C-alpha cells in the first residue's frame, strides 16, 4: 500500500497494511479523544515496551505508530468498510496526523493549488468550501497539490507548500458546479458522500512550491466576496487550530507547531476569505480571487 508517508518523513519511515486488528485496548491508556472526529489516541496501549501510539479511527482502522522503528502499522478494524472509505481515512486523516507529528512541517487542514506559478492555500474546516474552490481553479488551468491537507515548510525567508495527497473529493453539488463527471466510485455520489475524482482528470503537482498566499476561509457565509487582513495573533492561532498532529498532549510537538505557525504568520501573505455559500456564485468567487492576486491576465 502506498500511503505517501515515506516521502514526507526523511528518516526511513515505512507504512504497512497488516490486516485485521488484534487490539483490545484498556481504557486506562486512553490519553485523548478528538472532539469532532472521535479519533482515540492511546499511549503504549497497556503493554510494557509497546510502541508509543495507538490511534483508533472508530469503525475503520487501528494504527500502531512506532517512532523508534519509524514504522506505521495499519490494521483494519471493520472488515465491511469499503475501499473508498479506507483510502479516505488513510489519506485524509491518518497521513496528515503522522506527518504533522513527526516531520518539521506544519500540516494544515487546507486545500492547495498552483495557478500560473503561484501557490494558493485555502485553510478551513470540513465543509468550508476548500474542495470547491480548488476544483473550480483546476478548471482554470491550476494544478492540484491537495484538497484537504497541505504541509507548510519554513525555510530561510520563505514558506513552501506541498500537498499531502493530490486527490480531489467533492460532494454532488460541488461536482455539478465545477463540471466534473467521472468519479472513482459513483456509489459515493449516490450515497450522498463525497466522491473522489479519477486522478487522470486532474493535473497534479507532488513537489513543494513557494507559497504565494494563504486564505483562511471565513466560517460565516457572506453575501460579499471579501479579502480581509487579519491580525497576526489571530492568524497564528487559526493556523495552530487548523493543524494536524497525533495529540495535543505531546509538549515538544506543541512547542514546535507553535513556532512553525509563528514563522508562517510572520512570513506569508495571509487574508481571511469571506464568500457566499451559493454554488451559483462560485464563478464570481473564483474571478474575485484571481483579480485579488492580479492573475486575471492570461486567464481565459
Amino acid at each position, binding site marked *: 500500500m502506498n500511503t505517501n508517508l515515506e516521502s514526507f518523513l526523511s528518516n526511513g519511515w515505512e507504512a504497512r497494511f497488516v490486516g485485521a486488528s488484534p487490539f483490545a485496548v484498556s481504557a486506562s491508556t486512553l490519553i485523548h479523544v478528538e472532539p469532532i472526529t472521535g479519533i482515540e489516541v492511546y499511549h503504549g496501549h497497556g503493554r510494557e515496551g509497546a510502541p508509543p501510539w495507538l490511534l483508533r479511527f472508530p469503525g475503520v482502522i487501528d494504527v500502531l505508530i512506532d517512532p523508534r522503528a519509524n514504522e506505521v502499522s495499519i490494521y483494519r478494524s471493520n472488515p465491511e468498510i469499503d475501499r473508498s472509505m479506507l483510502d479516505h481515512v488513510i489519506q485524509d486523516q491518518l497521513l496528515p496526523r503522522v506527518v504533522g507529528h513527526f516531520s518539521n512541517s506544519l500540516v494544515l487542514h487546507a486545500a492547495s493549488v498552483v495557478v500560473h506559478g503561484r501557490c494558493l492555500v485555502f485553510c478551513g474546516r470540513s465543509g468550508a468550501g476548500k474542495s470547491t474552490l480548488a476544483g473550480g481553479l483546476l478548471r482554470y488551468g491550476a494544478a492540484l497539490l491537495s484538497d484537504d491537507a497541505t504541509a507548510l515548510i519554513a525555510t530561510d525567508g520563505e514558506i513552501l507548500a506541498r500537498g499531502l495527497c493530490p486527490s480531489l473529493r467533492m460532494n454532488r453539488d460541488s461536482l455539478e458546479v465545477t463540471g466534473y463527471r467521472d468519479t472513482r466510485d459513483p456509489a459515493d455520489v449516490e450515497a450522498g458522500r463525497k466522491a473522489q475524482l479519477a486522478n487522470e482528470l486532474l493535473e497534479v503537482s507532488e513537489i513543494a512550491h513557494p507559497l504565494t498566499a494563504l486564505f483562511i476561509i471565513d466560517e460565516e457565509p457572506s453575501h460579499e466576496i471579501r479579502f480581509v487582513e487579519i*491580525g497576526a*495573533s489571530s*492568524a497564528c*492561532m487559526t493556523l495552530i487550530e487548523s493543524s494536524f498532529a497525533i495529540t*495535543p498532549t505531546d509538549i515538544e510537538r506543541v512547542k514546535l507547531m507553535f513556532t512553525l*505557525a*509563528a514563522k508562517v*504568520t510572520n512570513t506569508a501573505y495571509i487574508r481571511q476569505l469571506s464568500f457566499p455559500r451559493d454554488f451559483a456564485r462560485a464563478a464570481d468567487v473564483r474571478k474575485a480571487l484571481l483579480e485579488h492576486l492580479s492573475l486575471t491576465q492570461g486567464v481565459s
Partner: protein
Amino acid sequence: MTEIDSEETLRPHTSIVANKVGDEYILLHLETGLYHGLDGVGTLIWEKLSAGEPLTAIKQSITAKYEVSDEVAERDLRALIEEMLDADIVIQT
C-alpha cells in the same frame, strides 16, 4: 489581590513559550495548554518583564511610548500583571 511592590521584578513561568507574530506576542502555557495573546501595551510589558526590569521602569516605558499619565500607566500595568499572575504566566521572584 496580590501585593506587588513597584521595585519588584517578575519573571516568566518556566512553562511559558512565547513567539512574536507581527508586533504582538502570543504566549503558550504548556501545562494548561492555553494560548494568551498580548496587544501592543502587553507586548511592551512582556518584553520588559522578560528582560528583568522592575515595575517602575516598565511604567516609565509605557508613559514614554504611549504618552499617558503615570496613573493610567500604573493602572494598566497592574491590571495586566494581576491577570498574568492569576494565569501563572509570570511569577514573583
